[in-house]
């Protein structure tokens, strides 16, 4: 496995509008990294490569880490997210493409047009590894093309090609057309029609059906007139100490395939095996978070999916778990086939909308794929619309039909309106439930934080999630600090969901910091049910030849978290934004957790202290110095 030798390409630009690749000098990092950042200027249709700085690698490790540091340096936090001045970054980790278990991941980083926070969305599939094989750790898109284009990257060669014939196509159609025009071996990341229309719920779709979904990163891509990116590489990822790496990687593989969660339940039932469990706990948000128990849970659970519509599993690059479902509804009004539905999607179009029809939920999932939208936010927006309608705040004349909780057909119609951006109501839905609810004068019906909709775990029951939703840097996402692992399955150790004590530290370190680290490595988070952080570091050190240790990995996660916080503070966020919807402070109306409510305030104060932030949630000088970020002291007028 050798790294391709660096040959400097002559600067050239020909009539076909090929990008110019300037000479570069590559910084040799021993392994893991490819050593190059590709900058693609869509305005001038030129590209250039920069060497990956060794210090960046040592401090920020990859993926999420690279994304935030580069973004912080290159983009003004006040930038309009849909302007040419915003940038869109794809970042792989040092382990991406190495063949370690589940080493498939890459991130999409930008400033979110939905939330105005920093956005970092994570995706699997095969695109990330292919970026590495082509020779790149990071690809940065800047500017705006004057008309729709797609970018074709084959090793050193970067081409800008017209995408007018692709505009309007679904991600699957786009993938097929682009590969036919470039290479059958190309991997494609693209936007669907929703991204083209700059829906703030649009994601970036790779490998036809996988999404870097949240935060509207697809709208950023659409605002740049960038329909797709096709990558093909003939290189491979060099390893600094291949033997030590493979010892560590095989240890991980052994643990993962012998783990009853990763290899047992995930393979058999996918993530939707949680539906019945969260529901039986009385923590399953229903009808726009009005209740926490759903009568249709069993009918829309992972077990029901396995029995009724599951066709097979599918895996990402180098992953034996194969947690992805491929399901099919063979006939009827909800006919369709494809990947999913996952737990979150099953919930968002199921319980959250009061819908018990599994086939309709599957169909909504396929629609989200075809439009290229975040299924969590889309389902949550439909649910919000349902409550607005039922309470008489959004008149039927605006919507065009009755939109009630539990009405599967109406749910599908609303989803299509959202994806199509159809009419005024459709356009409002396409930009998420915050803007929808605010338009009708009822922002209290928006169930999220910082304009990002919450996920399928009630913060009234899981106090760790209450704190995490409130403080997550991209808004109310679950995955960046999924304390349910501890508060329910006991990974790493069981902690009752309703206790408050110790939750601040639980959220901060083993969840938020650790997840940021994992998202930097290139490994899928789902391995973490079988292994810990240490095993990932044990692979990263021999892969890269850098002095990565467990302690440094904790610091690295902390560093990422603080940089994101600084970005957000400079973008205008304050401690007042670390909050929850008022409804979450009201008692759960029924079920096993009746009476329970989110207890945020005390936890938040302690959390800030543990993070080394002042009472306004601003990182203090000492904290920044500890992280090697002393140069950033004072950026927020501290």
């Amino acid at each position, binding site marked *: 496995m050798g790294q391709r030798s660096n040959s400097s390409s002559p600067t050239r630009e020909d009539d076909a509008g090929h990008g110019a690749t300037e000479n570069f000098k590559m910084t040799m990092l021993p392994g893991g990294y490819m050593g190059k950042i590709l900058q693609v200027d869509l305005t001038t249709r030129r590209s250039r490569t920069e060497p990956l700085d060794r210090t960046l690698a040592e401090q920020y490790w990859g993926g999420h880490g690279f994304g935030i540091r580069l973004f912080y340096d290159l983009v003004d936090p006040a930038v309009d997210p849909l302007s040419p001045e915003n940038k869109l970054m794809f970042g792989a980790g040092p382990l991406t493409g190495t063949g370690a278990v589940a080493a498939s991941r890459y991130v999409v980083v930008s400033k979110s047009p939905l939330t105005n926070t920093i956005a970092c969305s994570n995706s699997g599939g095969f695109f990330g590894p292919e970026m590495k094989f082509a020779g790149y750790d990071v690809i940065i898109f800047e500017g705006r093309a004057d008309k729709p284009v797609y970018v074709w990257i084959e090793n050193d060669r970067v081409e800008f090609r017209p995408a007018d014939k692709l505009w309007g196509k679904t991600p699957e159609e786009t993938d097929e057309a682009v590969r036919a025009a470039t290479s059958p071996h190309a991997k494609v990341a693209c936007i669907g029609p929703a991204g083209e229309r700059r829906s703030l719920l649009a994601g970036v779709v790779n490998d036809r059906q996988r999404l870097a979904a949240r935060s509207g990163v697809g709208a950023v891509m659409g605002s740049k007139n960038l329909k797709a990116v096709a990558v093909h590489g003939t290189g491979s990822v060099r390893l600094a100490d291949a033997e030590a790496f493979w010892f560590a990687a095989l240890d991980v593989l052994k643990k993962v395939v012998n783990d009853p969660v990763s290899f047992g339940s995930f393979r058999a039932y996918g993530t939707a095996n949680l539906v019945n469990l969260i529901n039986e706990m009385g923590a399953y948000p229903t009808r726009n978070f009005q209740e926490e128990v759903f009568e249709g849970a069993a009918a829309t659970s992972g077990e029901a999916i396995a029995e009724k519509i599951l066709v097979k599993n599918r895996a990402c690059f180098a992953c034996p778990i194969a947690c992805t479902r491929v399901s099919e509804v063979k006939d009827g009004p909800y006919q369709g086939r494809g990947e999913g539905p996952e737990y979150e999607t099953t919930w968002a179009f199921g319980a959250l909308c009061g819908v018990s029809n599994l086939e309709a939920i599957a169909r909504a999932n396929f629609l989200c794929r075809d439009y290229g939208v975040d299924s969590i936010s889309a389902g949550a927006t439909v649910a919000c619309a349902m409550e607005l309608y039922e309470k008489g705040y959004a008149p039927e004349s605006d919507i065009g039909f009755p939109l009630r909780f539990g009405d599967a057909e109406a749910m599908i119609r609303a989803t299509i309106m959202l994806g199509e951006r159809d009419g005024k109501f459709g356009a409002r839905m396409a930009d998420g439930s915050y803007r929808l609810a605010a338009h009708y004068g009822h922002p209290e019906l928006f169930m999220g934080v910082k304009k990002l909709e919450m996920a399928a775990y009630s913060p009234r029951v899981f106090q760790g999630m209450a704190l995490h939703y409130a403080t997550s840097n991209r808004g109310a996402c679950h995955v960046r600090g999924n304390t349910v692992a501890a508060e*329910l399955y006991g990974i790493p150790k069981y902690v009752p969901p309703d206790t408050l004590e110790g939750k601040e530290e639980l959220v901060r370190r083993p969840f938020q910091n650790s997840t940021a680290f994992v998202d930097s490595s290139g490994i899928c988070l789902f391995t973490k049910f079988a292994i810990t952080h240490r095993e990932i570091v044990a692979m990263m050190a021999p892969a890269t030849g850098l002095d990565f240790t467990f302690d440094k990995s904790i610091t690295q996660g902390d560093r990422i978290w603080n940089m994101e916080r600084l970005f957000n503070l400079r973008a205008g966020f304050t401690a007042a934004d670390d909050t929850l919807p008022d409804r979450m402070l009201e008692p759960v109306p029924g079920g096993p957790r009746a009476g329970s409510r989110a207890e945020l305030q005390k936890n938040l104060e302690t959390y800030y202290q543990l993070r080394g932030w002042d009472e306004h949630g601003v990182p203090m000088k000492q904290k920044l110095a500890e992280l090697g970020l002393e140069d950033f002291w004072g950026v927020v007028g501290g």
Partner: protein
Amino acid sequence: MIIHVKLYASLRRYRPGLALGQSFVCAAPDSATVEWLFLEALGLPPEEVAIALVNGIHSERDRLLCDGDTVALWPPIAGG
């Protein structure tokens, strides 16, 4: 006493024919614990039982059961 039992995910194969989410009843002595229930009454392999909810609340294996309790059991599972 009478305990209502629900089995989920891969544990369902130990009671084929039971509809998803439906409970079945199990007679238990006064001193029965969660562990007694799944080991003795139901004969489930212990490594296959990871999560027990008693009336919706997460419970350890040594929790004593009361008449009329609903016990729901899962194998090791997780999600995202």
